[in-house]
């Protein structure tokens, strides 16, 4: 194992909060505000880690353990995920399954922690979260199947590493469909507009944010850092797919990928500034639509 294998996970662990900062600055630019500092999330994390904690009297160890289990699962996932041509630290045939199921595991415990405090707001968020994620699960798996089909490999690193300019020229249509499907999955899994609004202040309409209402202090810091990691993980899949720069020189690859990540953050900021959140009843249509696109991509690929 060479040192370049450490680049992808290190970039994720260090830069994930910055990704959110770029999105927020883009949104502020659209709104004509100056906006929060780029590194705001780092400051928030530092502040939260320095605080005490307040728990609901209803709650048990689940509410205390949920953020920890979630963050631990996401950190293992970070080791599996490649950044474009830079392979992940751990790669083996079938790691894309571990990837998908560790994400479900993190979600499982977030949902349980939400139910632990017995608030109907959090129950509402939990119910929506499991419903929407059930609909994104097949999309993710089918999109990964397309990549596995083209690369003859069941490992995320090899599957994304095999996406080159040639493969875009040959299977462009199917890759575009996978890109759209993965983008929708990325938005849905990370509670972004148009599925969920991270900035809303009305508990009734929220999904992810409402689930963590009763967390505070270090627990909230774990959760915030975990969601930043999760966003980075999905974003690096999307960027790895659309940016087929595979020079083989680690620092060129890293530089182009980081640039790509920055661009994606700006694109996400633009999406969030120019779109309204969908009505909750409409969200399933969007998610099932993404599944259809992924299925179509697969049909085109295996044709």
């Amino acid at each position, binding site marked *: 194992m060479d040192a370049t294998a450490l680049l992808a996970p290190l970039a994720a662990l260090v830069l994930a909060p910055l990704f959110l900062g770029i999105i927020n600055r883009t949104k502020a630019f659209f709104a004509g505000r100056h906006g929060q500092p780029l590194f705001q999330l780092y400051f928030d994390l530092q502040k939260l880690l320095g605080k005490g904690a307040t728990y609901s009297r209803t709650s048990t160890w689940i509410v205390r353990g949920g953020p920890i289990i979630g963050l631990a699962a996401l950190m293992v996932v970070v080791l599996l995920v490649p950044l474009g041509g830079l392979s992940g630290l751990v790669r083996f045939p079938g790691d894309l399954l571990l990837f998908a199921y560790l994400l479900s595991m993190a979600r499982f415990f977030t949902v349980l922690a939400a*139910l632990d405090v*017995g608030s109907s707001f959090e129950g509402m968020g939990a119910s929506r979260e499991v419903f929407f994620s059930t609909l994104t699960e097949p999309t993710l798996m089918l999109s990964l199947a397309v990549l596995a089909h083209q690369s003859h490999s069941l490992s995320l690193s090899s599957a994304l590493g095999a996406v080159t300019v040639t493969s875009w020229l040959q299977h462009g249509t199917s890759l575009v469909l996978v890109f759209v499907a993965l983008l929708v999955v990325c938005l849905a899994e990370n509670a972004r507009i148009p599925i969920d609004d991270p900035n809303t202040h009305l508990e009734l309409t929220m999904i992810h944010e409402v689930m963590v209402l009763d967390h505070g202090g*270090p627990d909230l810091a774990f959760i915030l850092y975990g969601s930043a990691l999760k966003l980075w993980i999905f974003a690096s899949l999307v960027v790895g797919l659309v940016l087929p720069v595979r020079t083989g020189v680690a620092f060129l690859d890293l530089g182009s990928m980081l640039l790509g990540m920055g661009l994606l953050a700006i694109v996400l900021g633009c999406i969030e500034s120019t779109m309204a959140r969908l009505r909750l009843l409409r969200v399933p249509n969007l998610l099932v639509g993404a599944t259809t696109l992924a299925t179509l991509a697969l049909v085109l690929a295996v044709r």
Partner: protein
Amino acid sequence: MLGLPSAVSKVLGGTPELASMVWSIPGGTLSVALDALSGFFLVPIYLVCTLAAFYGLEYLRSSPRGNSLGVFWCSYNLLMVSMIVVILAKNGILFLLAWETMALTSFFLVTFENERPEVQAAGWIYLVATHLGTAFLLVLFLFLGEAAGSYDFDRFPPVVQFLPSGGLFLLALVGFGTKAGFVPFHVWLPEAHPAAPSHVSAVMSGLMIKTGIYGLVRIVTLLGPPSTWWGVLLVGLGVSSGILGVLFALAQHDLKRLLAYHSVENIGIILTGLGLGLLGLSLHLPALAALGFAGGLLHVLNHALFKSLLFLSAGAVAHATGTRELDQLGGLAKRMPVTCFFFLIGAAAISGLPPLNGFISEFLIYLGAFSTVTAHSALVALGPALVAVAGLALIGGFAAACFTKAFGIVFLGEPRDPHTPEGHEPGALMLVPMGILALSCVVIGIFPAGLLPAMETVVASFTLQTKDDLSVILQETVEPLLILSLAALLFLSLAGGFVVLRRRLLRRRPVEETVTWDCGYAQPTPRMQYTASSFAQPFVARFAIFLRTRHLGGLPKGFFPRMASLSTKTPDVFRQSLYAPLFLGIEKGLHYLQVLQRGRVQVYVLYIVLALVALLTWTRK
């Protein structure tokens, strides 16, 4: 009598040897043999039956029957022995005898609390369903036995007169499928399993339905090389059974009924694995065959472990609170912390989450299905494999939703109904069996590679591939499984590290307790909590076409409504729309035969004479 089950199981409890021994029982060629396949199915039977028996000792102590439990334990032992004989039998007649004993004894166990009308109804449904299934098996064995001139399994020919082997396969599928309980033959399962005492539900759901899977595998190995459509059919049935089973489970409010529907789902996953395996055999794709069969069979073992764990812990909840209604429970994590922890392990395992055993078997099935994707196989293998991949992903999502609901509503929050007893932790006799099951789920999940040699032997014993072929393929999965172990250990140590970090951070800082945040409303009551029905509402609304949930009660009326209530009920759509009309139609048709029933002996004698004459002319022809 009470001590007997444990003694019996202990005698039998040794690890089965993977050797074959045949002997004759006086009066015929009744033979039994223990080969790798039988041995594999016997391990969970020995383990779970013993544990469930210990659990039952305490569980039934407060039963209103008091000391008259002799009949119950007698049936329990007979059920256990008959399951073992079913697995060991090498002769059609012995097999059917044991099969019938198994059906009858489990009927007696289901109707243990026969003073309750719903238990009686469940018992009858079960009895009818199991006998209809056996009827198909009878025909199957008659065909095979007639052609061979003997009912010994190893003499059964792959082809018989009048019926192609596909026909035999369909007979086996319906006959064994009724026992295994996949859609559409599952209707008895959500009735019978909740009605039985919890440790019997664990045995039935974890073990007895697996004898259906065993029978199917055994017969398929006797029928020679499989056709391609067998595998395609099994994958189709498996995926639809998995999705529909878990959807029905989501809509249930009865904890044990919910678990029973999850058996339908998991049998679907097993069937998907077996279907992929058959497909691999018929198309000569060794990777698909090996991984499909290995995953499907491993899921048999895993499901036996976590499903019985879930039924036992659900039984502990029902035992302590006197109810299985999700919406009357809540907050039990504080009163029953150990049970809560065991249920959580079972719930995570059945949802296929790493690092537990459910993930391992699904991982193998996925690997098998994906092997056709990376190898760019022909569409006839690729299509079903991709359906399996998408289906498994969807099932996984649904299962996680269903078990966050079940666990969250029962154990978390505040008690939802003030009239429900507070609950208490059960005694050691109930807790230790649950603990052993939970531990085995964790151990298999963290160290899965240790099971591969066993899976190799089992799969090689009934597929026609040589063991070398298999070991090449399964050797390739050793490395991923070892990395999975490492990932599991890394995950656990990371979590442990964060626990320490959090404790460090919070030392000497204020840690307070207050009410749950309710938008500034400081007087939350338990009635405001989300319920099982409200949690599942998005699913129920979206999939109404399958579920047909009925809403009872209505919206509040007027500006100052006094009272309003709403409850939902989801009956089984197959029972309502398929079997009920079918059987009512048959009953109606049979009414026409009443014309023959005259109530006069002379007329009946005439019937006998006519029948004799008809038979005589037929044989003389």
